[in-house]
């Protein structure tokens, strides 16, 4: 009975590790193979969410089952990566836009003000001053 449980725990840990590794592989192949910079921006998100997440959950389960210690560091790292991934993606996209995309290639922003990257910031009105 105990042997069966141990096998089940091993299978669970191995499953998360393999899923994490597979998504990392998908992300890195996408980083090599995709044609355009903005397409390539899409590929490594797989590696940074499910890839690292799988490895971290696998390690959490491993230490829970085989070392008898429950730790939440892994969840902290996953949470931190999930919080920061959109910010870095936004910054990298802005860098690319400034490098390659001109103002005339873009449609109107659809607001009172223009694009933050190309146009001047709006003037303060008298009331706001």
């Amino acid at each position, binding site marked *: 009975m105990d042997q069966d449980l141990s*096998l089940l725990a*091993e*299978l669970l*840990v*191995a*499953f998360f*590790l*393999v899923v*994490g*590794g*597979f998504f*990392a*592989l998908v*992300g*890195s*192949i996408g*980083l*090599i193979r995709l044609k355009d*910079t903005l397409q*390539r*921006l899409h590929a*490594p998100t797989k*590696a*940074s969410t499910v*890839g*690292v997440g799988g*490895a*971290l959950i*696998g*390690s959490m389960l*491993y*230490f829970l089952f*085989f*070392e008898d*210690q429950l*730790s939440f*560091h*892994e969840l*902290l*790292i996953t949470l*931190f*990566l999930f919080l*920061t991934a959109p*910010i*870095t993606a936004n*910054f*990298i*996209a*802005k*860098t*690319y836009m*400034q*490098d*390659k995309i001109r103002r005339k290639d873009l449609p109107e922003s659809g607001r009172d003000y223009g694009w933050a990257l190309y146009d001047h910031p709006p003037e303060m009105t008298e009331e706001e001053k």
Partner: protein
Amino acid sequence: MIVTYALIFAFACFGFGLLSTMWRMLVGPTQADRILALDTMVINFIALIVLYGISQGTALYFEASMLIAMVGFVSTVALCRFVLRGDIIE
């Protein structure tokens, strides 16, 4: 035993990811590609450290990976701001 094989597989995958980010960083062609490659390199490296912690059976490496995650985020943002504005803190 199964965990050992899964660990080897995951090590190979993340190691290949590290190589692919290095290739993308060398080839480019735009600055955004290089910054993206460095960011992904940090992420793959975090996963490799965590896997090494499992293979050694010690929880010592989580602090290291947490610190590297923070430093990686800050350095990515600093690089992007430097390319965007020519200055990091205006």
